[in-house]
């Protein structure tokens, strides 16, 4: 495809869009689909056909609108009205009302903190693009950034934009993306690879899935730009097999892009070649660790290996490899379009831009949000999140999944950035944010995460393999009331060993949920140990006499 054809395609689609008087956008990301939004969309289509509104009404299946708690969601005429909790039988009413007053009983106000306090960069367009149409993406300047980079910038210049943006890895570690890219760019190997890490394994995180389901082309475009910058001609997306919808849409998107020469050889008539293949994960959290992920793509057991050498020097098939997370790639197109400086003007001094979070747990507005770095946890939980479920009291918010920690009320005013979260024993992580109320026991929460780490440990290194199992046993003892202070001390000691001597990030951070709950909720541990009492009433504690015998 030449540039002219490319421009023309976008124009055509835009014109086509303008013909429509109305638009009905139904969210077809997984959460809404699980509430039958795909069937609702079908009913609306039938209804439109019946009323012969096909030429004036555009119906699209779009990506995540964020407020999953109120799903299925439907957006009428680009935000004119937003319908929530829609059911199949509402289709007729919705279509009938299209030229008239909106259906009041389904209407949700868009002028609420949940919507107006967010800032969408990575998720920009996610609820405004047909999830399965390349043309629709092109109509909104899709692949424009790739074209500009390929034709107007040298790899070095494009890299400078990423460096200037201050973007840091969104998978959790927060490593400067520009630095990573430049390391791969200067590496000298026969071949280079770009890998998109979509092995979103944190329990309670669904940002990557939502992004891939909503606007897969944006990720492909970001990867292609990365390929151009670092000099790679092959990309892989490593995605969890548990995300069938995202896989389906990605496969579809790759095929579309290949057909239109947006992937493949001589992309858009330039000398640049870049292909993308999908590799499925198979249920191993540790494969989110980059060396384990590489092993998995190579068809091996997903065991990490010691670093250095880092994948940038020696990665997939021992070639220089760039690995970034989905959200990191999602930020590339906006950075290329608006410039690194624009991106760097958002956020805090060390954490630039925005961050996508998956809000879940005991919170009213469960769903997906994107906020500028530096916003306080309190604003996220109580303002955007709408606060705690009726009748319950806030206890903690858990960030960073099994590698993170629980943050209590007293730290809620802390700004969200990489450094602050680490100082209090949690971490940014990939963006799962679980709100915990007073009906949960923090020792039980720690046990949940240790159960997770224990079963996800690959078993290669001893401290993680045995240490996580030992810690889990002790937590089991504490929660059933058979532990003494001696066990508690052993637990703290094990945390220290596992943290300092484990081979990879999984082990090194496995103790964080325990350490942070000990730090902020020590009295809950002591209550289980001394008084054989679970303050939240969650743990089934044995009677005194049973313990002794």
């Amino acid at each position, binding site marked *: 495809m030449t540039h002219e054809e490319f421009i023309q395609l976008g124009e055509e689609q835009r014109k086509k869009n303008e013909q429509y008087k109305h638009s009905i956008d139904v969210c077809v990301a997984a959460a809404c689909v699980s509430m039958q939004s795909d069937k609702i969309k079908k009913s609306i289509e039938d209804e439109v056909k019946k009323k012969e509104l096909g030429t004036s009404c555009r119906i699209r299946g779009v990506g995540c609108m964020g407020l999953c708690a109120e799903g299925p969601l439907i957006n009428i005429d680009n935000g004119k009205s937003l319908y929530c909790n829609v059911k199949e039988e509402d289709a007729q009413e919705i279509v009938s009302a299209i030229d008239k007053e909106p259906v009041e009983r389904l209407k949700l106000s868009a002028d609420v903190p949940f919507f107006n306090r967010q800032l969408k960069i990575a998720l920009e367009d996610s609820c405004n693009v047909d999830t399965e149409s390349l043309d629709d993406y092109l109509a909104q300047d899709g692949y424009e950034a790739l074209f500009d980079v390929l034709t107007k910038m040298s790899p070095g210049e494009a890299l400078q934009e990423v460096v200037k943006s201050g973007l840091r890895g969104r998978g959790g570690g927060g490593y400067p993306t520009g630095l990573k890219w430049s390391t791969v760019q200067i590496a000298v190997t026969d071949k280079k690879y770009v890998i998109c890490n979509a092995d979103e394994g944190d329990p309670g995180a669904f940002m990557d899935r939502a992004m891939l389901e909503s606007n897969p082309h944006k990720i492909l475009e970001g990867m292609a730009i990365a390929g151009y910058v670092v000099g790679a001609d092959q990309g892989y997306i490593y995605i969890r097999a548990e995300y069938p919808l995202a896989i389906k849409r990605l496969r579809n998107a790759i095929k579309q892009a290949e057909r239109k020469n947006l992937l493949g050889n001589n992309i858009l008539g330039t000398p640049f070649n870049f292909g993308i293949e999908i590799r499925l994960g198979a249920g191993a959290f*540790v494969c989110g660790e980059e060396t384990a992920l590489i092993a998995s793509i190579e068809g091996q057991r997903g065991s990490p290996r010691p670093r250095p050498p880092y994948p940038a020097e020696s990665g997939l098939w021992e070639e220089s490899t760039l690995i970034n997370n989905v959200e990191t790639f999602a930020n590339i197109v906006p950075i290329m379009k608006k410039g690194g400086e624009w991106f760097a003007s958002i956020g805090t001094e060390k954490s630039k831009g925005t961050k996508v979070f998956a809000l879940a747990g005991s919170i009213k507005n469960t769903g997906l949000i994107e906020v500028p770095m530096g916003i306080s946890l309190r604003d996220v939980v109580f303002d955007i999140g709408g606060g705690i479920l009726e009748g319950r009291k806030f206890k903690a918010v858990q960030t960073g999944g099994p590698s993170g920690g629980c943050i209590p009320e007293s730290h809620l005013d802390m700004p969200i950035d990489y450094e602050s979260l680490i100082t209090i024993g949690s971490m940014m992580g990939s963006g799962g944010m679980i709100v915990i109320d007073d009906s949960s026991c923090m020792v039980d929460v720690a046990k949940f995460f240790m159960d997770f780490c224990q079963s*996800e440990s690959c078993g290669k290194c001893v401290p993680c*393999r045995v240490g996580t199992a030992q810690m889990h046993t002790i937590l089991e003892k504490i929660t059933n009331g058979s532990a003494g202070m001696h066990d508690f001390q052993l637990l703290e000691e094990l945390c220290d060993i596992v943290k300092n001597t484990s081979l990879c990030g999984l082990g090194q951070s496995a103790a964080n949920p325990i350490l942070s709950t000990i730090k902020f909720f020590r009295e809950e541990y002591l209550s289980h140990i001394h008084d054989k009492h679970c303050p939240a009433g969650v743990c089934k504690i044995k009677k005194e006499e049973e313990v002794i015998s």
Partner: protein
Amino acid sequence: MSKVRIKTLKIDDRDVGAREDQTILEVARDNGIHIPTLCQLDGLTNLGGCRLCLVEIKGSNKLLPSCVTAVEEGMEVSTNTERLQKHRRSIVELFFTERNHVCAVCVSNNNCELQNLAKQVGMTHVHFPYMYPALSVDATHDRFALDHNRCVLCTRCVRVCDEIEGAHTLDVRGRGIEAYIITDLEQVWGESETCTSCGKCVNVCPTGALFEKNKSVAEMKKQTKFLPYLTMMRGARR
């Protein structure tokens, strides 16, 4: 032949010279500095899994496995700090809690690397709880047996079978605390389709997990000298 560059570094306050392709462990050994190891064995690829050879490097808070960490110019390495000693002792203890190690009735008593490590790191007793897993013994092979109770999952047997014998009869099943060594598709060893009965796995096993069947308590002596020899004869890099 291409030139090999030389690096100078400090190990335990001693100035030492090294080829740039050497690991810290190799250089330490060349200079008579002892670093405890378990999964490492000359002639096999290095794993970095047992974490006993961790060392401290000045300027970094991270402990690094010396068996796979390459030397760097000006590096200052400490191999035996109090922090390392403490961690090593704990790691050896964790090994003892993981499976059912009973030195007194083991074929490898007095010839066991785990037993020696316990002494080396000054383990007076195991202060973590023993896990007492229920594990089996596979004695179906004509000449050898595998006692999972004594296995430390160092995977030396897996590596020697793959890298040296070329049969890859052995591998690890499952993951985490539930991982264990298997033959082929987890059929019993005696029914393995690929085992050549060469016995290399038995000889590289650091404990009494793999042993010859006619051996009784404390009678099993392993010999691993064949390994560097075989590697050399095959013209491999190391």
